Structures are given as C-alpha cells and as structure tokens.
C-alpha cells in the first residue's frame, strides 16, 4: 500500500466534489471482496496484515467519500495541501443569524406551531441548498487553480453547513 495515495485514487475515481455514488458503492464492494479475511486464512502474517490495512483504508475512504460534508472537508484538505486555513471563519453576521434561528426553534418548542415549524424547516433547507450549490461552484474553480482565497471560501462554506445541519436536526 502506498500511503500517499488519496481516497479518490483508492477507488480509482477522478478527484472532484461530484462523486457517482452508485459507482462508488460498486467499487467499494468489489475492492472489499478482494481483501476479505476469508481469502487470507492460509496467508502469511505479512499478507494478512496487508489485507487488513487495505480493508481499513477502504472502509475509511468509503465513509469519507459517501458523505457530502465529509467529502467536502476531505477534498478541501487535499487541495489545501498543508496550507493553513482559518478553520472557524464564517460570513459576517452568520452566527447572529444562526443564533436567532435557534431562538425561533426554542419558541416553537415552547409553543408548537406546526405550520411555522414547517416553514422554518423549508427556510433552513433552502439555505443548505444554497450553501451546497456555492460549494459545487467553488470546488470547480479550486480544482482548476487553488488560490488561498478560494480555499478559505471553501472552508467558510464547509463551516456554514455544520451550523445549518445542527438547526435542521432540531427541526426534524
């Protein structure tokens, strides 16, 4: 196993934010089959170890690429290639907005209003959609040429999603 290969290379997929999930599933299944412990019952300890390492890599890679936020954070890490980013940065006023929305959820929990709750849920979903659409565009540009500004914008984008997902979880 070459430790420097990334998860896209592990699965033989093109490096990018868009991943064909059916393709990823199929490749994961096939590659996992090849390193299944059953085939290594009679193998040497070194071979067994190698198969275990590969299996662990496949599992970690699969989990990462399967999940959009994880994939985004991972791809950003690859593109940043060690360059330091401000990992807490958010657009101006964003935290205040999140706080206000959290307070609204509190109010809706204290005095349930299904219609208002559904509306808030839609508003949060729309913001999540906007964040993800922006991410697709940013990654497309960053893959063509990763400038510090683009990388930081992506970091901020990834951060935003965390807060919105937190809200969405409360509204579910």
């Amino acid at each position, binding site marked *: 196993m070459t430790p420097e290969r990334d998860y896209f290379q592990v699965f033989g997929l093109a490096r990018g934010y868009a991943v064909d999930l059916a393709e990823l599933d199929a490749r994961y299944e096939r590659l996992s089959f090849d390193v299944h412990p059953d085939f290594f019952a009679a193998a040497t300890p070194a071979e067994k170890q190698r198969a275990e390492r590969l299996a662990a890599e496949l599992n970690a890679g699969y989990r990462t690429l399967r999940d959009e936020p994880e994939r985004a954070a991972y791809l950003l890490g690859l593109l940043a290639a060690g360059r330091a980013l401000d990992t807490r940065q*958010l657009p101006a006023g964003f*935290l205040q907005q*999140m*706080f206000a929305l*959290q307070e609204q959820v509190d109010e809706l929990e204290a005095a349930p209003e299904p219609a208002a709750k559904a509306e808030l849920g839609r508003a949060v979903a729309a913001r999540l959609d906007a964040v993800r659409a922006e991410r697709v565009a940013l990654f497309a540009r960053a893959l063509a040429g990763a400038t510090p500004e683009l990388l930081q914008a992506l970091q901020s984008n990834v*951060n935003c999603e*965390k*807060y*919105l997902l*937190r809200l969405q979880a409360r509204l579910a």
Partner: protein
Amino acid sequence: MAYSNKVIDHYSNPRNVGVLDKSDPNVGTGMVGAPECGDVMKLQIKVENDVIVDAKFKTFGCGSAIASSSLATEWIKGRTVDDAMKIRNTEIVQELSLPPVKIHCSVLAEDAIKSAIADYKRKHGQAATTQQQEQQTQQQARS
C-alpha cells in the same frame, strides 16, 4: 458518555441564563460558534469601573457547552476585565472533568468570554474616539 456531577449540576441548573441590554455602552456581547458541531453561544458582560459586575449567557449546544458557559459566567463575575481575559479552557476542562471529545465545548466558553470583552473594548474605544472628536470640535470652535 457519562457526564460528571458538576456538568449535570450546571446543565440542570444553569447559572446566569439570560440577556443584558445589548445597547448599553457598559455591556459587551460575545457570539461564538463551534464548527465542529454547529453549536452557538452568546455571552454578555456588564462592566463597571473595569470590573465585571454581571454576566449572562445563552447556549444552544450540548450539556458540556452549557455547563462550560454557566461556569464561565460564575467565574468572571467580580473579576476585572484583564483577569477574566486570563481564563483558559483547560481550567474549565479540569473543573468539569470534561473528556477529550468535549474539549471544544470548553473552548467555546473561553472564546465567548474573549469575544464579549472584545466587544466591550470596541464600544469603549469608540466612546473614547467620540470624546476625542468632541474635544477636537470644541477646540476648533474656540480657535
């Protein structure tokens, strides 16, 4: 994961939950978030003669974050601004016996204190500039 008794105590009976008047020049408002989990925290201080005389918070977060901010407000009350600035999240971790996965929750509380103080100082700085400007205008008017 089991919470320590101190966390449970602060969580079930949080001290100083509430709001202070944001527009009061003596009130500093800090707003911080943890991108690790998407939790948000607001912490406010009221300062008189450089001493924090009141503190309030509201946290949308896990039990450890609520306990950390509750403890933080207890600790900063009665301290000078400079003293409050010295509070480190590691002290909160120790006091509440937080496990490693909950360290970012205590970081949130430390950041909230700093953010509130920064806001207070900003207001203070601005107030000072306005005074200076007023003095200048008065001087210009006199000359």
